[in-house]
């Protein structure tokens, strides 16, 4: 299996707090690599460094063997890195269709054209329609994002990320705040996505992680304390100590 994303010795400090402490991990094509850890462990901080929103203090990030450590967010996206946000971040004044359309439009390019009509970009809108038709948001195309439920917004985040046809997706707690049924549906979807893109999955929901992950890394205080298959992580005493033992503190 070829490695899509390769992280080496990543570090990030916020003042006195070491939020990312010498993190090294790989995500291979066709796999879901889950990153778990208690609240405040530094998972979102890590995602933000991988996506380029935060600049790491040290370490390297490679995407398909290319060093992307110094690239901007947009440049990384152009090279096939996709993400969703833990706290959904969408275009609130637009409809569901327009949000998906924007993702496709951004991916297609040609956006400095001031003399065309965006409504007439057929390739964009036909694909947007197709994506939404096959999604859980079918029937909601004309709804404004501001009027969507939390679960629907999470869905839209995922659809927009997938519309960009990424090589790897960073999913920051896609199931947080979802009801049981919605979570089940999301698990089913991620299962299918695996064939199209590598996934770094950040998740609190243990059930989901153990159902989906091919590999698991456990992050505590910014440091990876264990890495391995689901079974290895389950039986790792350090993990039980640091993480599962404190399960009632999780949210």
């Amino acid at each position, binding site marked *: 299996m070829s490695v899509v994303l390769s992280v080496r010795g990543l570090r990030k400090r916020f003042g006195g707090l070491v939020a990312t402490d010498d993190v090294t991990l790989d995500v291979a094509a066709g796999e879901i690599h889950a990153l778990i850890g208690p609240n405040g462990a530094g998972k979102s901080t890590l995602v933000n460094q991988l996506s380029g929103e935060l600049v790491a203090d040290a370490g390297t990030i490679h995407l398909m063997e290319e060093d992307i450590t110094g690239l901007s967010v947009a440049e990384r*996206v152009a090279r096939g890195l996709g993400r969703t946000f833990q706290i959904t971040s969408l275009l609130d*004044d637009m409809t569901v269709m327009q949000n998906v359309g924007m993702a496709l439009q*951004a991916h297609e390019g040609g956006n400095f054209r*001031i003399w065309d009509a*965006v409504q007439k970009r057929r390739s964009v809108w036909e694909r947007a329609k197709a994506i939404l038709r096959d999604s859980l948001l079918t029937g909601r195309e004309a709804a404004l994002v501001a009027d969507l439920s939390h679960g629907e917004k999470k869905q839209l985040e995922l659809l927009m990320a997938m519309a960009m046809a990424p090589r790897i997706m960073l999913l920051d707690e896609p199931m947080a705040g979802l009801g049981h049924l919605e979570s089940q549906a999301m698990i089913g979807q991620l299962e299918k996505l695996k064939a199209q893109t590598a996934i770094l999955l950040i998740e609190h929901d243990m059930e989901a992680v153990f159902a989906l992950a091919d590999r698991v890394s456990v992050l505590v205080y910014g440091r990876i304390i264990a890495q391995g298959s689901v079974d290895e992580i389950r039986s790792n005493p350090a993990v039980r100590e640091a993480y599962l033992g404190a399960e009632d503190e999780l949210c």
Partner: protein
Amino acid sequence: MTRHRILGLGLLLVLALMPVLTDLAGQPAFLSLMTRILIYGMAAASLNFVLGFGGMVSFGHAAFFGIGGYVVGFLFFHQTEGTLFLGLIPGTSQLLITLPAAVLVSGLVAALIGTLALRTGGVQFIMITLAFAQMIFFFFVSLKTYGGEDGIIIRRANELPFLNMRDKATFYWVVLAITTLFFLGLRRVVNSSFGAVLDGLRQNERRMAALGVPAFRYKLYAFVLSGMGTGLAGALMANFLRFASPDMLHWTKSGELMVMVILGGVGTLFGPFLGAGAFMVLESVLSSWSEHWPLALGLILLVVVLGTKGGLMALVSRLGGRK
């Protein structure tokens, strides 16, 4: 859509007949008020392009307005003197040359200012645009050759082939034609691929970055386009006033353009024109009523900002029974 089109054509017809109507009513001053409204409307709509559609609060747009005016002034000055501007460029009074020149120069300056100002955002962006406009203001004040604080008098309005631009009605019709083209062009840009991306950036820059859209160059492009539109309006204003002076770039002028935008409705296509009309009418009514009219204007502004949302455009669509 068709209803819009009928309304638009009706409005255009009334505007086109304005010289005849004001003549019949014996109110020639009203025609010159209308001319100024159209010109300021273009300036305000250009500002609204960055402000309402792009979410960039520029407090320095008077700079582009003034630069547009000064380009006309410079070219006129060198034509009458028979000298070369910077020893290179001959003067001219052909509108077909002066307008594009004004648009080009304003665009270049907007590119410079935008490149610096867009390195930051929010409150800094406001202060930086204001500061650079002020710098350009002082620049023109220091140009003694071109009148310094007093500005350049342009004895004759620029010429167009086959037209008598000294005639008030002809001048008005030319401005109206340019305004109409400007409006159609602006509408086109807003509805273009670029317009959609700009709208996305205004709503959520972080999301757009995650879609691979680097904000800076799109915002800069919008800023340049906006500066060009404002420069066009400035060039027409200099022709109308037969005068280009530092007053055109005074910082209060930037404030006035913003007031027009908010009076009409931020982020609407037609709002800035309504706002420019409301502002100019308000100004002429209030100032005929008392020399202390800015006091009333200040209070009206406070009430509008604190008390209403959406400006005149919102009022119009509410009256029209939509939303």
